[in-house]
Structures are given as C-alpha cells and as structure tokens.
C-alpha cells in the first residue's frame, strides 16, 4: 500500500497530473482508518483525481463520498461536498447516517437552529446515537456558546462515560474558560482509562503547573516524570520536569532533603534535553543550555 505522506509530494504529483488513482484511494482509506483530519488534501485528491474513477471503487465508494462530504464542509467547498451528498442520499434514502451529514451541511452554512432540529430528530429515532449528540456540542461551539457546550457535553459524558474524545474535548472547553481544576479532572478520567498514554500525563502536569503553588508543582513534577518514563522522547515532559523541579526547589517550604533530590532530578532533565538537542545536527544545542542557566537565575525575580 503506497501512502502519500507529505503535502508537498501530493502537490507535486497533482501539478504534473501524475496521480495514480489507486494510490489516492489507499491514502484516503488510511486517513479514514486513522481518523485524521486532512480536509484540504481530501478535497483536492477527490476533485482532481478520484471522482473520475468513482465507478471503480466498488462498495468503498460510499465511504469515500462520505469522507469527501465532511472534508468539503470543513473547507467551505460546498461545490465539492454537495454533489457527493446528493449521490449518497440517492443510494441510501432515509438513512440516519446521511441525515447527520445533512445536519453538518446546515452547520457549515451557519444555519445552526435548523442543524440542531435535524440532530434532535435523529436522537428521537435513535437514542444510542453518540456521534449526533456530539454534533450538538459542535453546534453550540459554532455559535460561540461555550458555557452551553460544556453543559451539553457534561450531560453526554454522564451517559457515555468512556468516550475518550468527549473527555478531551471537555478538557479543552474548560481550558478555554480558564477553569483549570475542572480541566484537570477531565485529564484524571483520561489517565484512569488510558494509564499508559504519555501525552495525557503531560497535559495533566501542564495544567497542574499552570495552577501553581508548591503542591501543584510537586504533582506536576511527578506526572512529567511518569510521562518521560513512558516515553523518553517526549520533550515537553523533559522541559516540564525541569521547570517543575526548579519551582519546587526554589520554594521556601521545600525541605533540604527534598531540595537535594529535586535538584538532582532537575539536572537529569537538563542533561536529557541537552543530549536531544546535540543529537540533532540542525539545531544549536549550546544556546538552549544558556537559556536554562538564565532561567534558574531569574526564576524567582
């Protein structure tokens, strides 16, 4: 399976109109399976290539067309999205899945109240439909009604409490409102259900550090540490570890014994960071160490 990975590669190919439709089909399939967002590329690949081969796609055609609808709505290319929506509707009349896409089209047109009605209608017919409930949160976000979005999402998570994506979204909404303690709670839920995912530990630590105070700096230090243990390549965890150690060590409430241990950890983090930069030939690592020396001097200024 050939996977067109870089954007420049795709553009270069398109420029020479040297697109192999099978490569394009495989790339779109990979993006569907990974659930990653490449809306501009999907639209271009469909428009300049794959739509001329749609009859060769077999059953996969409908999943591709659905993907193109969503990508088109994402980039305000309704000229690309709408024809696909029409063919999907003809193929699957009365489908709730297609109706959701119609709701998303209304969202793209900023006809939010109508979109909300479409989603409420789908939920009445199918109470278990989780993705449509999340679209309602998206509508509220689209209207800038963040407090209502939080309320709606909190209600959703009471029913669908293992939805990782939902908890991440709620965390981000709380961060936007500056409610760090509730955002931290969301990350705690995520860590409980994903105890080996280093990025959740990192984000939790960053939130704790932002909240400030010795207890939070100590918590941040532990969680950055755990993140670095789970993934030694995580530069944010190493930087975070260095910073939280500095904060803990310079706190007047820190005991001498704890200070000694913390400074040792801080030195270790600095060593790891410097090593990472020195392995990277394009980057001047010496300046980074200079930076940190100045950080530790001016820290409590």
């Amino acid at each position, binding site marked *: 399976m050939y996977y067109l990975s870089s*954007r420049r590669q795709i553009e270069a190919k398109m420029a020479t109109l040297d697109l192999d439709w099978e490569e394009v089909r495989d790339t779109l399939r990979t993006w569907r399976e990974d659930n990653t967002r490449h809306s501009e590329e999907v639209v271009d690949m469909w428009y300049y290539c794959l739509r001329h081969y749609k009859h060769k796609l077999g059953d996969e055609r409908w999943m591709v067309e659905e993907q193109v609808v969503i990508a088109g709505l994402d980039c305000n290319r309704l000229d690309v999205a709408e024809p696909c929506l029409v063919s999907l509707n003809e193929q699957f009349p009365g489908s709730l899945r297609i109706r959701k896409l119609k709701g998303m089209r209304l969202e793209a047109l900023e006809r939010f109240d109508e979109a909300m009605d479409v989603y409420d209608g789908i939920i009445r017919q199918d109470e278990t439909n989780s993705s449509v409930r999340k679209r309602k949160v998206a509508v509220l976000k689209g209207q800038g009604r963040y407090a209502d979005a939080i309320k709606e999402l909190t209600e959703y998570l009471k029913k669908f409490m293992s939805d990782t994506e939902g908890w991440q979204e709620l965390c981000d909404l709380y*961060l*936007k409102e500056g409610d760090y303690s509730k955002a931290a709670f969301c990350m705690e839920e995520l860590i409980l259900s994903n105890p080996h995912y280093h990025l959740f530990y990192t984000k939790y*630590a960053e*939130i704790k550090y932002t909240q400030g105070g010795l207890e939070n700096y100590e918590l*941040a230090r532990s969680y950055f540490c755990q993140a670095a243990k789970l993934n030694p390549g995580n530069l944010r965890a190493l930087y975070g570890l260095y910073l939280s150690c500095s904060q803990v060590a310079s706190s007047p409430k820190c005991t001498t014994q704890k200070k000694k241990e913390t400074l040792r950890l801080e030195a270790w983090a600095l060593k790891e960071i410097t090593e990472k930069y020195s392995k990277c030939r*394009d*980057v001047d690592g010496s*300046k980074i160490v200079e930076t940190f020396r100045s950080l530790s001097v001016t820290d409590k200024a």
Partner: protein
Amino acid sequence: MSSDITLECPAIAKMLLHAARYPQSAVSGIVLAQSRGGGDDSLNTVQLVDAIPLFHLHLSLAPMLEIALTQIEQRFKSQGLIIAGYYQANEHIRDTVPDFVALKVAEKIAENNNDACLIMIDNKRLCLSLQTAPIIVSQLTSEGKWKSKDKSSIHVDPSYLEITSQLLQRKVQHDVCDFDNHLDDLTCDWTNLQINKLLDTLAAASQD
C-alpha cells in the same frame, strides 16, 4: 503608549501564515522589535520587524510558554531584538476579543516594555487577496487598560499584503513552523529562516 505602529513584511506575513495553517484552532505568537536602548523616547513609532509563531494547541498552559519566551529572548538578544508584543487568532471565526490568555501574556510583556502591542487577528478578513491588514492592534493606556488603536495608526506597506496574499495562494502556510511543531520535532525551526529568506527574495523582486 506610542502613537503609530508599523509592521514589516516578516511580522505581518508570518503571523497570517500561522493563522492560515491552523484554520480549526486558535494560534498565538510573539512579535519582535528593534530594542531602543538609551532612552530614545523621541521616536513615537513602534516598528514590529518579525513574528515568532508559538502555539496552536492549549494556548492557556504555562510551562511551554515560559520555555518559549525565555528561548526567544535569549535567541534574539544578540541581534538587538526584543519581545514587543503578542498576537492571537481565536478559534471562532467571528471572535476578535482578547481572552484571559491574551491579556495575561500581553501584560507580562508590557511589564518590560511600555509600548507592548496586543494583536488580535481578524479571522473573517483573512483572505487570499488582502487589501488591508486583518489585525486589531491594542496598547496599554496610562490607566492600565488595553485600548485598540485607530486603523490610521497601523501601517503595513501594500506590497507586504500583496506578498502575503501570494504566499497564501501558494499554500506556503504549510511550511511555517511554530513552537508546538518544534516540541514534537526538534528539526522544525521556529525562527522560520527559510520563510524570511523567501520574503526577502519576493520583496526584492517586487521592487524591480
């Protein structure tokens, strides 16, 4: 608080390219100016010469912001450049109001620099063919409030808007690196020297 603000090509271009690269997120960054040195208060203009894209994820978290600001200060000290302001594009297309993050960071910058600028990008006016600079610039009044400046006090040469439009049409925003990219991949250059070189070339060409 000064009366006029000028934005050089790298400042306006990189700011807008950064925003265009992440249409689904809020983005933030720093703007740099030449340090005045020696109390030259007779000049009543602030000249923003460059922009450093910072984040497109979790703008409100402190640790990486602290690292970034310290590194930026260190990196540009030898060139005589200082941190002169903060820019942010909100997630919502119609939202140009600075949130608590923007205000906090801008205030921090203003502690060391009275003329610090708080720049909000007006997402709705960002397009492929820029006629005016889609930004709202604010500075601190003597009462400690951020006041947005009149459009007539903001100067961006039309050729810079033309160059930025060309870059947006050619989708150069995908080559812009911010600090978040750098933290994921050390080879990403958050100073974007390549883009600065490209801007120099285009500026020279437009003068011919």
